[in-house]
């Protein structure tokens, strides 16, 4: 039981993520989480503004069901399959984040300094969440996929466009974590 309650090592987690992709392919579907954002736009009536959203979204409800499951899975994992042990981060990372104003790094899944109610009430905190969300939503659709569709499914099927997209993910991520985050915090 301890093995389940403790955080899982990377060599267990990686193959299980591949299993998720394999199961969806077995059910004749493709692993791709960002597509749901497009589906939600279509359901909300975005087809009135762009043909990009004119498609039969009812064919995509299976993927929204995966999303609903993922939310439930997150709840189950935290409430029934965890023993409260924090994330075992590199001590160097913890000190570095402390200098940027992040306390108790790794104790929770996301920093309170960005995501708790106090942070959301501040103009800076709210702006960061909105800007981040816009970048994720705009970028994934522009690149036609995210970590699941390109980094996992795309690279597993040895597709060059996915490799280009993943290189893009890293260019953006490296710029944000190394150059922009230190300016924000």
């Amino acid at each position, binding site marked *: 039981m301890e093995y389940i309650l403790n955080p899982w090592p990377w060599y267990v987690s990686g*193959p299980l993520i591949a299993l998720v992709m394999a199961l969806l392919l077995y059910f004749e579907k493709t692993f791709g989480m960002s597509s749901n954002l497009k589906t939600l736009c279509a359901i909300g009536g975005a087809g009135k503004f762009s043909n990009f959203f004119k498609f039969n979204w009812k064919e995509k409800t299976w993927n929204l069901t995966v999303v609903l499951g993922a939310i439930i899975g997150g709840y189950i994992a935290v409430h029934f399959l965890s023993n409260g042990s924090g994330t075992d981060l590199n001590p160097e990372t913890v000190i570095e984040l402390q200098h940027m104003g992040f306390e108790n790094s790794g104790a929770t899944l996301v920093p309170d300094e960005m995501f708790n109610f106090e942070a959301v009430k501040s103009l800076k905190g709210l702006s960061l969440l909105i800007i981040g969300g816009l970048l994720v939503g705009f970028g994934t659709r522009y690149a036609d996929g995210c970590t699941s569709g390109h980094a996992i499914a795309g690279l597993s099927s040895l597709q060059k466009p996915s490799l280009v997209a993943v290189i893009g*993910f890293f260019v953006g991520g490296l710029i944000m974590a190394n150059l922009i985050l230190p300016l924000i915090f």
Partner: protein
Amino acid sequence: MKFIKFLLVGIFFGIVLVKSEAVSWYRIYEMFRFQSFHMYGIIGTAVACGILFLQISKKGYLKSIKGSFISVPKKEDGFKKYIIGGTIFGLGWALIGACPGPLYILLGTGVYSMIIVIAAAIFGTFIYGVLKDKLPH
């Protein structure tokens, strides 16, 4: 009832991403600062197993539930949209510490402020849809 299998896959996905700490903002930061192997290990083994699975399927040893050939749909050719779109997404990924899957999973773990991020991500997708024809692809 035909959706129950997708609900179960989703639940499994959510549990795996929480237990693997792939939904942790800190793990994403660590990855982009090259301070930990953890995320590289996860993505690396996922892709290695994925390649193995798809190669076995390609040989015809594994079939889908309806008995057809298993393969990942081919991505459209292109360069600009993948590199530019990918970079924009990467900026958001490292800021929020979550890609689209974890956005929902974190909501389930009790990070309710993710609703704001999800709403903004839906709006970001909408902006792309409206501007699509004016952007380089």
